């Protein structure tokens, strides 16, 4: 019987890069095959739709949400802070933005309103990440569990708000708030549901995060925290403070994404699962797909967004499978990426 053994190996950079490109292409093929099967579309049409998706400006709708969250997670994961609560932090970001826009006088001031709302969103996102960080730092509670559970608290808190005290007066009993004032909205690109300002901000965030992680002492220490907290202490940097920074930054960025989503797209607070719609979880996969490098996250989020558009694009008129298909595709893609990562580091020997 042939036996399989797993052997470590080291490929040159070029080969590893080639493997990634291969995975990306293979992922597209899988996506096309899957979409055409599920929606009963001819394969050539599905393929054409894929190509259209790649040049469809609507990718920015998804990039605007996914990219900042993934950048935040990239910072957290680099420091071994396992924040799985981006979904909840995103939702609470939307709540924060709604509060500032609807329930403070600042909400009706031109220019000031969106800025203040976004700041509120980021603050509430960070605040939502804080308990898990504190529990981990002072009580050693596993942060992966606490952050995950906080997601549900965020969902239901939002549901309570939109069904209870914040339910709008002009919404005919639907579980939403009133629309936020026009002054607080971020203007969309004509004909699309994204904003160029936000896209620019997201790319700037990715660039800044890269500079922070790879060009500053604090950023390098943060990456070192992933391998050894004691090493970090011994170079004179507080490992606790660093951990807190990593956690709060990722929470703030998820909150930022939630605020943006609300001010650009929804325009009013809706039920938690609808605000979140799983982007916080997709972003976890995206962070790994980009190899925890903020710069690589830009193409990775573009690619993921295109696959989203593909799976939605072919569903018009067919059964509303919605996010399910998109998430299946992105999920299988990540599996593939991880497999490729494994195969570039190890090889299988048959004998």
């Amino acid at each position, binding site marked *: 019987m042939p036996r399989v*053994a*797993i*052997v*470590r*190996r*080291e490929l*040159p950079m070029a080969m590893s890069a080639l493997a990634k490109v291969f995975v990306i292409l293979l992922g597209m093929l899988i996506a096309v095959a899957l979409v055409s099967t599920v929606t009963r579309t001819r394969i050539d049409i599905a393929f054409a739709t894929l190509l259209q998706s790649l040049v469809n400006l609507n990718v920015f709708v998804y990039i605007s949400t996914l990219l900042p969250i993934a950048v935040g997670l990239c910072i957290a994961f680099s420091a071994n802070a396992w924040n799985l609560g981006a979904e909840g932090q995103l939702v609470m970001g939307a709540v924060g933005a709604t509060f500032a826009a609807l329930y403070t006088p600042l909400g009706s001031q031109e220019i000031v309103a969106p800025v203040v709302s976004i700041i509120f969103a980021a603050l509430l996102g960070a605040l939502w990440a804080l308990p898990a960080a504190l529990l981990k730092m002072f009580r050693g509670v596993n942060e992966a569990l606490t952050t995950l559970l906080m997601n549900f608290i965020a969902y239901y808190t939002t549901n309570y708000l939109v069904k209870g005290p914040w339910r709008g007066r002009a919404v005919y009993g639907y579980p939403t708030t009133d629309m936020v004032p026009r002054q607080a909205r971020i203007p969309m690109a004509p004909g699309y549901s994204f904003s160029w300002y936000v896209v620019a901000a997201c790319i700037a965030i990715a660039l800044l995060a890269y500079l922070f992680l790879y060009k500053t*002492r604090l950023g*390098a*220490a943060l*990456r*070192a925290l*992933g*391998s*050894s907290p*004691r*090493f*970090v*202490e*011994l*170079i*004179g*940097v*507080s*490992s*606790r403070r660093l951990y807190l920074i990593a956690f709060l930054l990722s929470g703030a960025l998820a909150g930022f994404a939630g605020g943006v989503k609300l001010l650009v797209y929804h325009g009013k607070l809706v039920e938690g699962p609808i605000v979140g719609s799983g982007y916080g979880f997709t972003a976890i996969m995206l962070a790994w797909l980009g190899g925890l490098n903020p710069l690589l996250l830009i193409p990775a989020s573009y690619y993921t967004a295109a696959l989203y558009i593909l799976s939605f694009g072919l569903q018009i008129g067919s059964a509303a499978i919605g996010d399910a298909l998109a998430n299946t595709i992105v999920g299988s893609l990540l599996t593939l990426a991880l497999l490729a990562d494994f195969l570039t580091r190890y*090889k299988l*020997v048959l004998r």
Partner: protein
Amino acid sequence: MRKPFLQTVNLCKRFGDVIALSDVSLDVYPGEVLIVLGENGSGKSTLAKILYGLYFPDKGYIKVEGISIVFSSPMEAKRKGIFLVSQRPQLIDDMTILENVAMFLGEPPSRDLRKRLYALLNELGITVDIDRGVHTLSYTEKQFVDLAKVLMARPRLLIVDEAATYLPRELKQRFLNIVKGLRAKGSSVMYITHKIGEAIEMGDRFAVLRRGSVVGVFGLGVDASTLRQAMFGSEEYLTRIAKGFTQGAPQKPAALSVENLLVFDEYGKPAVNGVTLTVGAGEIVTIVGIAGNGQKELGEAVVGLRRVSRGRVRLNGVDVTHMPACERVRRGLVYVPEDPFREGVAMGLTIAENMKLFSQTKVSRELLETVTRKLDVRPSNPLVAVAKLSGGNVQKVSLSRLLLTTPKAVVAYSPTRMLDEKSRVLALNMLQRLADAGSAVLLLSEDLEEALHASTRVCVMVSGRIVRVFEGPDLEGYREVIERVMVHA
């Protein structure tokens, strides 16, 4: 004509751009101790790892009793009776000693195994509770537990990769005797070291590696200078440790002081019990003792990695007892930790990134180059990840903190561990130079050699207490007394 138990045929291994081994062909005969000698980063450990199935060679193969084979996992090597004791103990921290051994041997942790393990530990002269979690052991304790674990498997070829080099003298002697016992029973030993003296004492044959190639194989009766010549080539280097001018100098103000310190270990037992100690600026004070007598806990308490239950730690007169480690480091206390891999460097970062982190201020490219050249880190490319370096080179990176800062006080735990002769001298000279420049140096060591060479004062630590202090211009003369005190207090 004897047949070799194991042969390596043209083994080659590359890591990215770094060539670790090129065309290494060696034979190991039954009943012999083959020494593999080489300086840090010469490819010794890579060779060991290939023989043990941890690395897969790029080219070449192995023959075991004439049959060609390439191991793809240690399990296969173990099946052929080949075992490795490496410089980093291969134990699972969250398990007990017994569980580790049982898992390694693939048998249940039965009463019988327990009895056999205790018997072997007895033979090695080690008293340790085998139901203790491995994470509570000191680095040296882990090393001999790892050794015992492998000896339990009755190896046909035992590869010793620097594992014995840092054992306390007495324990090491017993270990060497056991190795010689293995040889008498017809097993082979591949003994990897960079210490020439140890090599000559142990070996039947000597293979010298330099930059990944075998540069010579010598028989019994070879002398030290021939081996040194082969190891380092014709390079000139210092073998003398520079002595400072601080010996016998008048009392300096205490830069680092510890007062009646009480520190507990993981089990709530006092590991450091009432230690009082003063290190003046410009002094090198060494604490020697057999591993597990509280030196590790003392070092960690001084630098702030371990909680102090009673007593005071002062740095330049400031009470730092309850400050976090990072705060003490910022105030000029530098710690060279016991385990360079886990605490001394960030393995995922590059050499340059690690070095830059050591300094609180910006490090210029020139300084970085100077430090790399001075420490002779190999490969010298600063953009290589530290994870790719050999053990000795990882330790050099960890030591670079001494060149990148001007500390008020230094606490160093066995800083020459894993270093070859040349780098060892360099490291001790670095400490001396820091002392000359006014730093207070507290050296925690299990190596009496190092202690006697470097210090102005030697304190012997036994069971968490400092039992004797030796001082004076001729510490060398106290060697025998110190050894006796270390073992029986």
